């Protein structure tokens, strides 16, 4: 690997990690689409801040973007609080409007500045290594790595310091308010973090990939665990793995890097959706099948136990009677009898199914339950 490749991978992993942390809380709070809205509108903040400072590398741009990100949240709330439109409609009205203003402002600058709405949407992480951070002539690596590293540190520190508040405000906002934490403060704090992360990241990877990295890994992690710290950790790992995998996919296909990373995020989610040990579709299907057999076997045992020692026992315990009585298809009924026999729960004597002592015990337990 060349040093430029290592730089790109480092930037990608740091971006993925810093996106996954606020993304986890967005997913849990059912506000995933706010990441889409904010990642579009921060462009307006960048443009407006650019009009003020006229320097594309100024940190003021990040501040402006964060402010417009918060403005988006406030506007959505103002519009939906009128009660005239629902919240999803409010989001769908506010962010295209702000984004449109940004696009029109940019096109009015066209040609004079390297600020292109396509580039903002799509990003070009391949250029990240060429923009170096070199104070006093000492090369310290790509600027993007420093910016995103700082944002990652802020996100990590914020999560550690306010973990209790975030957790409570996410899972039980009413209790949080009753205990004197302000859910609104947590809300706006989180939105500010989302805005700063989005603007830092989209310079490198584009706003759509910001959405993919913020939402995809936490959505996958949510299917893997019920514990918040573990979900945070898994999100970071899945995000970083998707970023690295996406990079190599892009090299393989010679395709857009951000697009490949988003695609791999999607593949990772589908894999988890299918294969998650507890909640995966495969595991669920297998559990359902197993439960179906267990239930059928228990019904057989209870049926035999009910008629044991009664005058009708001879009639009731013939194997073919089971199929009629339980309305089981013959093949299914035979399988049930066979597995029950294999487990030593019943024996076949003179065309009669008889409970073994273990079988009698199992029938009693199943009936009680």
């Amino acid at each position, binding site marked *: 690997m060349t040093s430029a490749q290592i730089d790109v991978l480092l930037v990608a992993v740091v971006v993925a990690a810093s996106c996954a942390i606020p993304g986890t809380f967005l997913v849990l709070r059912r506000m995933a689409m706010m990441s889409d809205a904010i990642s579009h509108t921060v462009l307006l903040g960048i443009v407006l801040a650019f009009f003020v400072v006229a320097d594309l590398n100024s940190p003021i741009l990040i501040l402006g973007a964060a402010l417009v990100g918060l403005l988006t949240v406030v506007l959505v709330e103002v519009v939906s609080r009128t009660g005239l439109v629902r919240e999803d*409609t409010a989001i769908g009205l506010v962010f295209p*409007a702000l984004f449109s203003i940004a696009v029109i402002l940019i096109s009015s600058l066209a040609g004079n500045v390297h600020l292109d709405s396509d580039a903002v949407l799509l990003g070009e992480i391949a250029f990240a290594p060429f923009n170096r951070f070199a104070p006093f002539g000492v090369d310290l690596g790509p600027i993007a790595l420093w910016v995103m590293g700082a944002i990652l540190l802020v996100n990590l520190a914020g999560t550690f310091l306010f973990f209790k508040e975030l957790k409570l405000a996410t899972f039980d906002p009413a209790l949080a308010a009753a205990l004197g934490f302000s859910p609104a403060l947590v809300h706006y704090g989180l939105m500010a973090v989302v805005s700063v992360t989005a603007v830092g990241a989209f310079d490198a990877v584009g706003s759509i990939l910001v*959405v*993919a990295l913020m939402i995809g890994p936490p959505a996958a992690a949510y299917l893997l665990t019920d514990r918040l710290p573990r979900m945070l950790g898994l999100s970071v790992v899945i995000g970083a793995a998707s970023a690295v995998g996406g990079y190599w996919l892009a090299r393989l296909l010679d395709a857009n890097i951000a697009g490949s990373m988003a695609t791999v995020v999607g593949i990772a989610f589908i894999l988890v959706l299918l294969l998650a040990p507890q909640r995966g579709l495969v595991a669920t299907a297998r559990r359902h099948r197993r439960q179906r057999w267990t239930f059928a076997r228990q019904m057989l045992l209870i049926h035999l136990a009910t008629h044991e020692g009664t005058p009708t026992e001879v009639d009731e315990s013939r194997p073919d009677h089971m199929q009629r009585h339980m309305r089981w298809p013959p093949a299914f009924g035979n399988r049930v009898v066979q597995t029950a026999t294999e487990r030593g729960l019943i024996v076949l004597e003179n065309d009669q199914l008889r409970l073994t002592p273990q079988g009698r015990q199992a029938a009693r337990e199943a009936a009680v339950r």
Partner: protein
Amino acid sequence: MDVLSDLFLDYTLRTVALGSAALGIVSGALGAFAVLRRQALLGDAMSHAALPGVALAFLITGSRAPLVLMIGAALTGWLAAVAIVYIVRASRTNTDTAMALMLSVFFGAGLVVLTFIQRQPAAGKAGLDKFLFGQAAAMLESDVITMASVGAVGLLGVLVLWKEFKLLSFDPDFAATLGMPTRRLDMLLTSLLVIAIVVGLKTVGVVLMSAMVVAPGAAARQWTNRLGVMVTLSALFGAAAGVLGALLSTTAQTSTGPTIVLVATGLVVVSLLFAPTRGLVWTRMHAWRSQRILALEAVMSDLAALAAQHSSDATRPHDVAALHAVRGRALVDRALSELAADGLAQRHDGGGWSLTPRGLAEADRLARLRRAPSDFL
């Protein structure tokens, strides 16, 4: 006036205006249902997800015919909608998360396919990047005809199944008890939303097309409580935003999509503020008027109560200091001067106030009107 005369004489302008009108009518009418069914953000996800469809359709067929690209866009947009519904049903992922995920993943896949196209030497690749933000000026007559025909299919679908879609939008549970196949109808209406989105892709672009689905419906909702009127108004608003925005962008040389979206947003703001009965200005004025009338009635009943304590002379002047203390000086003074102007209260020499005989009668009438139902038991 130049623009107006050009509109009828200039071929490009006429094409642009007609196309934008068709787009606005279709997205407005179908979008009205999306707004009612809380699918505003689904429209956003679907329009982003149309990008890989456009790119794949071009890559496979090599054709830039609008119908081919629209079919491709519709297929992936629809696939994204199905995936969202399926993921939500099959796992504990919530709708918001599924939408954001599919939006970004489909869009990312679209970028990957776009890079394949950009590597092709074919000259025909030019113009595909216009699908991001749209370009009305590039619209041809054949585009307009295709947009209008595809849109007409969508509108026809709504007309044929009007009753079913109406019930589905307002009371899906009741629709299910009537034996309507709600799941299939739901899928069908969502598929029609795809039509609304693909019709505008070339003019407005994938990024902003969702706004054209949401804004006209949200604006129209403020003016009426009837579905038929709302859908018609929504189509009109959509057409107005489309034509105005496209003409503005052509004369001011701005990107078409964002300009149309800003015009549509302007319509929403006007509607939110000024629509009768629902608009903010109207409700504020209504609240303000009710407050004033309540203050008048309160002060009248206070004065009547004071008068009742001195039955010998009902119009004897009273010191209003007590009223000031209880209800606030500004409110009481304003109410008193209005009552005096109406001849219901009078100010006596020495500063005291009382009701006039007419005021007493009015206070008595109000007291009987306002009596709580329990008083009659």
